[in-house]
């Protein structure tokens, strides 16, 4: 029993060491999108499928918003070192200058994308619900 506890404590210490080394090595930074191509590719992995017809990238690559022919919207938001595609309702979006605010009900938080003057054009007028 004592040996098992010592083994568990040593394993726990090793876990802490490894996590610290990963942080020290600079792997705590958020993911950045390489460009529109990557945003389209990641959006295509949305459960149920998604073919983006229009994409707007955050200026710093922190995320992106995309729409498809059916008017659905997918938000790509950083989830640690990777991105998470997430379907969002049209009424979750609101423009504020160059920024687009997307309210995430499930996570009870707001994602802000700086997409430039184009922000006011989201959601695309042809896809906006009456």
């Amino acid at each position, binding site marked *: 029993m004592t040996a*098992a506890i010592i*083994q*568990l404590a040593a*394993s*726990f210490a*090793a*876990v802490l*060491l*490894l*996590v610290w*080394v*990963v*942080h020290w*090595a*600079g*792997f*705590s930074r958020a*993911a950045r999108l390489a460009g529109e191509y990557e945003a389209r*590719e*990641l959006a295509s*992995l949305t*459960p*149920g*499928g998604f*073919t983006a017809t229009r994409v707007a990238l955050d200026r710093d690559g922190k995320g992106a918003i995309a729409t498809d022919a059916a008017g659905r919207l997918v938000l790509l938001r950083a*989830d*640690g*070192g*990777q991105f*998470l595609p*997430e379907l969002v309702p049209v009424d979750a979006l609101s423009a504020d200058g160059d920024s687009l605010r997307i309210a995430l009900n499930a*996570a009870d938080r707001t994602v802000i994308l700086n997409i430039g003057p184009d922000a006011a054009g989201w959601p695309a007028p042809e896809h906006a619900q009456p």
Partner: protein
Amino acid sequence: MMPFDPLFYAIPVFVALILAEVLWSRRKAGGQAYETRDTALSLAIGLGSTVAGALSAGVVAALLVAAHMLAPWKIGWAWWAWPLCFVLDDLAYYVFHRSAHRVRWFWASHVNHHSSQHYNLSTALRQSWTGFVALSFVFRLPLALAGFEPGMILVCGAFNLIYQFWLHTEVIGRLPRWIEAVMNTPSHHRVHHAINPRYLDRNYAGTFIVWDRLFGTFTPEDDADRIRYGIVHQLGHFHLLRAVFHEWAAIARDVRAAPWRHKLGYLWREPGWSHDRSRETSEMIRERWRAGQN
């Protein structure tokens, strides 16, 4: 029961190799192989799985002994039994692993191993806490019934698990053709962890990739299709307990909400199955992807 536990001696090597991979990834410009919270979650799940495994080890060993006692003959500890046991245990692993992806009850336990969006050596340690509840041990019982010593089966299983550790890396590209033809390699296993439609539910092998080639579940890695890792519905958080039990909770919700005649379907059908076809299985995702390619 178990002459010695190879995993006990392997753990320091695992730690050293993870350290080496982190430093290698740091030197590689723009590398995203690791992420701090993801690694913390992988290692915490790994640590918890050793505790869960220790708690159920006695029962699993007793069941193997009971099965061995029912065997019509005893193979014993003959030297030739070791390689034979290893190969057959690897076949049993293939069957277990394929079932773990095709039956939601088993998947609820195995999903932990796939829930990282990263692919590195720490991902290898993201092992299940609920393997005993999911009845994973039943896949090894036939070996004991065939007369193999329970201790031999457990040692072979441990070596199989150790072999699979080094598969979880992007550091190694392709190995010589004859190795890729026979053995499971990082390239083959990257395919297994991918969520790209073409790769879903492929390459179930543990040590020998020949099982996938034999049973039609092999797909080679295609450099033109960048691999994205994780699960179809990504976790989206780094909470330990939610990560470990999320699929069990989802099964409970689905069974509760489903009409009576469909309740069992949410336990034994493949992940993604739903009685109203409102969700997608791997086959449906692949079909949709193929249709989009044409």
